[in-house]
């Protein structure tokens, strides 16, 4: 019995079991997220349910569970029509259901507001449209919708022109403000020149705006009449409809292409309906941008600090204290970094920049408010200890013989570092970067204080000078999860979006890490010594 314990067999089993439990938990987590997230875009059939009390409902089955008091099941239907019923979902006891049918002509509308509409198409009014009335109201609706979406795009282009114009007038306003701040009398000529240019622009803008308003009013006119399950009629403007489809007539192929379209929308479009519908592009973009910017700050700082600590600083009390401090920094709660970033970067440095360079705009802050630059810097401080620790390990793993070989050839310490030691330490440095990026992509708490917002009107990167606007606020997938899942007025409808967002965030972290790991392995291969 004694030898059984001594040989360590049970300990091996114990460690193996611990590993498998950990792996299993990770797999289950990813599995749950995938099951809940991936099914979201699949257009499931709509059921017309006749209840025993004589009422009817039309909806997609979204969940089933065991009834609390009876032996049967309880079904949850996504019935939509929030504007009619007040809520999107309805629980029904199985025993209350008399019949279920799957009518071919049931229509699901994705709307810009108030969620989905489930019902039947009655008639289409083509007021102001060129599209002809087709044989069936459904065909007419499809043609009309196509035309409306074309018109909407033209309108959006005008809107873009107007946005560019208004940002130009804003630039002019700020320029005038700056000039009059530095001396209204001295710059009188320039100011009046700019003012007249601005007024000209504003006049042009007003003309455009009027045209824009007219067109959008005209776009509100074509509408369609729908009826819900109970037969109640509802007038819906075609412009309010994003998508219309009849899931019960769609084959697998049609559904798959619908799914692909939804995924495309998710990745490339802006969010709608307080983020619970539409795309996630600004959040994806913001997350990636922020992580990249964070790496740009954190990597050089961490590497330089580690090089000093390991190669130049004389081992002693101070270095030991610094090292302990660095290691402990990694354990500080992230919200503390957020508060620090807010106080130091946003109010301190940002406020200072505003007072120095943009005094005319005060009290409206320019840099003295959260932005992607401050968020990246805050996260860079948060992740720099990770980079320092792994860079130090990388430097320590470079064999002494190689340093001596370089020095014995007459290289200075710096040349040795640059030509031999640092290249050989890159795999270690990359490891630090991977950990830092994974950590930064997942942080939410500090970001809420230093620049992440629920909905950013503009991306930090765009076509107007200076192209990369580091002072802009941005959206972030991690915050998006929190916001959609816990701050949304319609939590039940937002639930699938939470899983989808989580899945995307995981995918981004995994993709970034895989890329870095791939690069690290390539470097490792380059520096691996052949065994004798």
């Amino acid at each position, binding site marked *: 019995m004694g030898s059984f314990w001594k040989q360590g067999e049970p300990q091996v089993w114990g460690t193996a079991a611990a590993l498998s439990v950990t792996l299993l938990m990770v797999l289950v987590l990813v599995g749950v997220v995938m099951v809940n997230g991936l099914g979201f875009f699949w257009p499931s059939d709509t059921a017309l349910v006749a209840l025993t009390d004589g009422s009817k409902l039309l909806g997609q089955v979204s969940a089933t569970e065991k009834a609390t008091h009876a032996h049967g099941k309880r079904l949850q239907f996504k019935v939509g029509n929030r504007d009619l019923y007040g809520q999107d979902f309805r629980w029904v006891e199985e025993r209350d259901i008399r019949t279920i049918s799957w009518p071919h002509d049931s229509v699901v509308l994705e709307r810009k507001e108030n969620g989905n509409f489930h019902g039947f198409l009655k008639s289409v009014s083509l007021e102001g449209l060129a599209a002809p009335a087709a044989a069936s109201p459904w065909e007419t609706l499809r043609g009309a919708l196509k035309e409306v979406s074309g018109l909407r795009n033209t309108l959006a282009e005008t809107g873009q022109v107007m946005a560019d114009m208004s940002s130009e007038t804003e630039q002019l306003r700020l320029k005038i403000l700056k000039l009059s701040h530095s001396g209204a009398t001295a710059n009188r000529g320039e100011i009046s020149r700019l003012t007249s240019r601005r007024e000209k622009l504003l006049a042009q803008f007003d003309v455009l705006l009027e045209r824009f308003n007219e067109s959008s009013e005209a776009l509100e006119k074509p509408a369609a009449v729908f009826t819900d399950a109970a037969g109640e009629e509802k007038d819906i403007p075609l412009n309010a409809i994003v998508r219309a489809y009849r899931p019960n007539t769609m084959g697998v192929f049609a559904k798959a292409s619908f799914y692909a379209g939804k995924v495309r929308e998710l990745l490339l479009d802006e969010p709608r309906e307080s983020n619970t519908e539409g795309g996630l592009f600004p959040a994806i973009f913001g997350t990636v941008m922020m992580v990249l910017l964070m790496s740009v700050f954190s990597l050089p700082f961490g590497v330089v600090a580690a090089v000093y600590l390991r190669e130049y600083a*004389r081992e002693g009390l101070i270095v030991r204290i610094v090292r302990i401090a660095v290691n402990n920094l990694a354990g500080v709660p992230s919200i503390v970094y957020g508060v620090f970033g807010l106080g130091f970067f946003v109010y301190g440095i940002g406020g200072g920049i505003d007072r120095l360079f943009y005094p005319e705009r005060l009290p409206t802050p320019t840099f003295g408010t959260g932005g992607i630059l401050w968020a990246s810097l805050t996260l860079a401080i948060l992740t720099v200890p990770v980079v320092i620790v792994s860079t130090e390990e990388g430097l320590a793993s470079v*064999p002494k*013989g*190689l340093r*001596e*070989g*370089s*020095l*014995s*050839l*007459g*290289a*200075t310490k710096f*040349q040795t570092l640059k*030509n*031999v030691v640092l*290249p*050989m330490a890159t795999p270690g440095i990359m490891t630090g970067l991977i950990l830092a990026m994974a950590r930064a992509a997942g942080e939410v708490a500090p970001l809420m204080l230093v620049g992440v917002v629920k909905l950013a009107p503009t991306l930090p990167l765009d076509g107007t000078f200076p192209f990369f606007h580091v002072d802009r606020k941005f959206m972030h997938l991690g915050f998006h999860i929190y916001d959609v899942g816990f701050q949304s007025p319609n939590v039940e409808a937002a639930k699938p979006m939470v899983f989808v967002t989580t899945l995307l965030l995981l995918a981004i972290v995994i993709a970034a890490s895989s890329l870095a790991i791939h690069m690290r392995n390539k470097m490792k291969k*380059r*520096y*691996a*010594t*052949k065994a*004798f």
Partner: protein
Amino acid sequence: MDLDITNPLSDPVLEIAGLNLYYGASPALRDIALSIPRKQVTAFIGPSGCGKSTLLRCFNRMNDLLDNVRIEGSIKLDGDEITSPALDVISLRRRVGMVFQQSNPFPKSIYENIVYGLRIAGVNDKKTLDETVERSLKGAAIWDEVKDRLQDSALGLSGGQAQRICIARAIAVNPEIILMDEPCSALDPIATAKIEELINELKDLYTVVIVTHNMQQAARVSDYTAFLYLGELVEYGETKKIFTNPDNRHTEDYITGRFG
């Protein structure tokens, strides 16, 4: 001064006098005095911890890398005092090359390994570099083995080849002296034989100082031998004499394998 052509010791390249070296408070070398003859092979032998590697590392100031090392006395390279703190260590190391116990090629191509010393000195002329590579690799007797794969990584070479690359790398900067710190201790007998043959050829152009544990090797390759014991120079003289008729009983005991 009369120059005795028949005795190389009358034209030493290195003159060491009254050399003491301390690691912290404990002495590692005591009152060493010897002259290293020009273009000859000098071997340092002695049991582990006797200070032979430490002495070797004084000649290119590699001991500077360690904290707590204190050196007293004088080492003159062609009359220049090299223990003085004012000395330019970089130029000293160009004059005194070194080959280490473990071959240590850089994780670069063979070509880049050889020209490393030139590149860091600011030489980037392609023709000079090419010529240096060929001359050094030929000088290290490895040209024929690697001439077709100069751009391959030096990490792919065998131990013996890597050690000869390190020798080629050392002679690429044209040093006066090459220090070898047990260059064959990690090699098999065939590779060792090649290196020993190479050492014999090197002495036409360079002064070689070699530290070795292997007494037969010292007897085979060196012209002069110094026996160190516990940080002191016990006996120094022509190899023939040290190995056949040593003056000191300690030396005799060590050489005949009675201790060590």
